[in-house]
Structures are given as structure tokens and as C-alpha cells.
């Protein structure tokens, strides 16, 4: 390998006209534009994860405690959204269903809806796993105390199950964050799309894609770190394994 081909060298190689490497000038100029893209990505992911949380919790409860027809519906929903690639879903809903129903939704809204519905399917399984890991005796005891099923589920099962779900949920966050890069097929100017635009104008592909990778890394890190903090904050004392091996 020639030394000149080393990536680091490519990143920092200047030219005769200016002392600052062109790649750096391009990167500094493009940074505000790329950061706006990071905001678009973050907004889409927060929206999708929120939607997925609301829908996912309901579906998990329905799948575990619901009537047979509800269980069947959730099964089909989860089977569909886990089985079809997100790229296909984006096209299917944006050009197909939303147009058919004459819903004039923007690309950004469509991305949130499709990512949200997809992650809802995955999230419902995270919540279901957590709920089913709780001992059945808790519900029996609640019933013996005269609680309604609804009250028992919302005040006893869910508060525990949601706590248990946070690690799995932070995984889902990281996955959806990176899936959001597909949003560009609908014309949403998120990180990847903007990186691509700047690279096409400046021909500094390597530098710019490294920058995009760093932006995704920061967003993942922030989210996962925040969820870890939340997990520790809502921990029930004496209920977790923390500090066991001191």
C-alpha cells in the first residue's frame, strides 16, 4: 500500500493553494448544515420511538391479557411489521396507502408514522417479554385483594415491566436511529441525505461520511446514556442485581 492512500493522510492532506486541508475547510463549512440534519434525524427518531411506545405498550397488554381476537390482531400486526423491510414499508405507505386514502402527509410525518409503527411491533415484544417474566402470583394476589384486572395491570404489572424493558428499549432506540437513514428515499433531509449532497458538490466523500458516522455515534451515545440514567433512577431498591458482587 502506498502511504498516500492511507485514510488519515487523505483526511489531512492540504494543497499548494491553501495551508488548511481542503477536506477540513469543507467539513467546517458543512457542519451547521449537517447538524441541522442531525436535528431532523433526532426529531424523527424521538417521534417514532414515542409513537412506538404508546402503541407498543397497548399491544403488549393486548397480546398477554387480551381477548382472542385482540391477540390475533396483535400477532398479525407484529408478524407483518417485523417481516417486511422498512424500506419497503416506507414506499408502501408513502406512495401506496397514504396516497390511496388521500392523506396529504409530508415525507417527514410519513417517516415518523412508518418508523413508529414498525418499532411498535418490536417494542411490543420487548414489553411482552418483561410482563411475562413477572410471577403470575402478583396478579392472583391483586385479584384476591379485590383489584380489577385493569387496575392490577396498570398499577402492578406495567410499572415493573416497563422498568425491566429499558435495556431492550435502548437497543431498539439505537436500531431505529440508524434505520432512520432510510428516510431519504422519501426526501427527508436527514444526516445521510445532507452528507450525500455536500459530498456531491465538494467531492470530499471520505471526510464527510466520517463526520456523518460521528454524528450518528453521538446521537446513539446520548440516547443510550440517557436511558441508562433513567434505568438507574427508577430502579426499585432491593429489586435489582446492582451491587450484588461487592
Amino acid at each position, binding site marked *: 500500500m502506498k502511504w498516500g492512500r492511507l485514510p488519515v493522510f487523505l483526511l489531512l492532506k492540504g494543497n499548494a493553494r491553501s495551508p488548511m486541508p481542503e477536506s477540513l475547510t469543507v467539513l467546517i463549512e458543512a457542519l451547521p448544515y449537517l447538524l441541522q440534519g442531525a436535528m431532523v434525524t433526532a426529531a424523527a427518531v424521538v417521534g417514532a420511538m414515542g409513537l412506538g411506545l404508546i402503541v407498543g405498550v397497548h399491544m403488549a397488554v393486548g397480546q398477554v391479557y387480551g381477548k382472542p381476537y385482540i391477540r390475533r390482531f396483535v400477532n398479525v400486526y407484529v408478524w407483518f411489521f417485523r417481516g417486511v423491510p422498512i424500506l419497503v414499508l416506507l414506499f408502501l405507505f408513502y*406512495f401506496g396507502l397514504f396516497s390511496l386514502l388521500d392523506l396529504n402527509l409530508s415525507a417527514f410525518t410519513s417517516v*415518523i408514522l412508518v418508523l413508529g409503527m414498525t418499532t411498535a411491533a418490536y417494542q411490543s415484544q420487548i414489553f411482552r417479554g418483561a410482563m411475562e417474566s413477572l410471577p403470575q402470583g402478583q396478579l392472583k394476589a391483586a385479584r384476591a385483594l379485590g383489584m380489577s384486572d385493569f387496575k392490577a395491570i396498570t398499577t402492578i404489572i406495567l410499572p415493573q415491566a416497563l422498568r425491566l424493558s429499558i435495556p431492550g428499549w435502548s437497543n431498539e432506540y439505537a436500531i431505529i436511529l440508524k434505520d432512520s437513514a432510510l428516510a431519504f428515499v*422519501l426526501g427527508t433531509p436527514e444526516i445521510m441525505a445532507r452528507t450525500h449532497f455536500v459530498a456531491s458538490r465538494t467531492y470530499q466523500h471520505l471526510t464527510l461520511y466520517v463526520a456523518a458516522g460521528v454524528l450518528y455515534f453521538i446521537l446513539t451515545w446520548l440516547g443510550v446514556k440517557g436511558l441508562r440514567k433513567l434505568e438507574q433512577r427508577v430502579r426499585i431498591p432491593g429489586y435489582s442485581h446492582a451491587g450484588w458482587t461487592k
Partner: protein
Amino acid sequence: MKKVLCIVAVFSLLGLVFGGMPAAAEKEYINGIDANFPPFAFVDKSGKASGFDIDAVDWIAKEMGFKVKHQPMDWDGIIPNLVAKKIDFIASGMSITAERAKKVNFTIPYWEIKQVFVAKKDSKYSVQYILTEKMTLGVQRGTSEAEWLKDNAPKKGWNFILKYYDSAPMAVEDVVNGRIAAAAMDDAPAEDAVKKKPVKILGTFGMKEENFGYAVRKEDTELLNNLNEGLKKLMASPYWQELINKYLKK
């Protein structure tokens, strides 16, 4: 109380989602562009859509009295986007082809384009050699040159291997990296690449000259007439030459 808060939160979220829809009252057209196509359409330093086609459309919009917004899109999906009414027209260096004319209507042609091969500056290959000697050739997916190369290779006994890219600049990048012998692309973006990368234009490869036109939905005759009239006025005005000097002069 919590429940009420929850309901309020859900509705405010819905409001956010649906509130973003444009009001129908103002006549604003959306121009779908491939922002990976300098000098015709790209995103400038401040993040604004810019380029030959963008400036031309802005002038026409002002002249003909309508508003226009430029929306960067994936080139692959740009015609489906137009047909599905996500955008209203395409002014982004689109070649007028018979295939595309089945799905959309084109305005009058405004720029003639040649298709060329771009190779590494120190490349020793000729166009003919690349076509016939099992070399790898890069091309942007969904372009007329991609279609033409694929259709003509068996007819003319060419046996190059075609590699598809999302955009022409990516193909150029791979030329520089040495993964492909050459990239087939329009001459204007090729000139742009030559300015920025150690590549050269090898020459044309036998594809007939093409013309760029704006694409409009079949049923949208009013917009088509507007654009046609605007284009005629623009091409007769001195601003046209100014635009050519600004973006397309070598």
C-alpha cells in the same frame, strides 16, 4: 389528572403532525431536484438548493407569477414522487427520453447534453477498449445512460460490467479509487468532476445527444404551458447567457 394530561399530549402531538401540512390556498409548486447533480442542481454552502436549473426555475416562477419550492429527492424515486403528487415538476437536468415520456410530459428542451466517459487522469484506456475488454463501468442508477448502456451492450457485442451508483459523483469517487475503469455521465457534471478530482474526460461513447427538459404530470397542462412559456421568455432574455456563464462555462 394524569389521564387528562395524556390526552392533551396525544392531541398536541397529532396537531404537530397534521399542522405541518401546507395550506392549499397559495399556488406554490414543488420542484423535485436531484441535489447530487452539480452544476444543474446541488445544495450550496449555506444548505440552500442552488444550480443552473434552480436559478432558471426561480426566474420563470417570478416571471409567470407563481411560487416555487425546491425539494431534494432521491433520483431513483423522483418520477414516482411526481406521479404520486408529492412534487409538481422536475427541473433537475432530466434527459427527455421516450421511456420517461410515457409517464410524464416534458417541456421544450433547454439544454443539449452529451454522455461521456470519465476516467483517472493517468488512465491509458480508450473508450473503445473499455467497452470491449471486460472493464468495469460505473453509472448512476435510473439515468438514460444506464438504460442505454444496458440495452446496447448485447447488440454491439460489448462485454463491460456495469456497476450502479446512487449518484454520478459516487461513481467518480470509485474511478479515483481505481475500482472501476470509467464512469459514464452527462458532460456538464463531468466537467464539474474534472475541476475537483484527478480525472479526465475520455470522450463520448456513441450515445446520441440528449436534451434536458422539465417533467410535469400528464394531466397538469396548465403548469406545462406556464413552464414552456417561461422557458421561452428566459431563453430569449440576457439572463439565460448569464446563467450559462455562471454554471456551465468551462
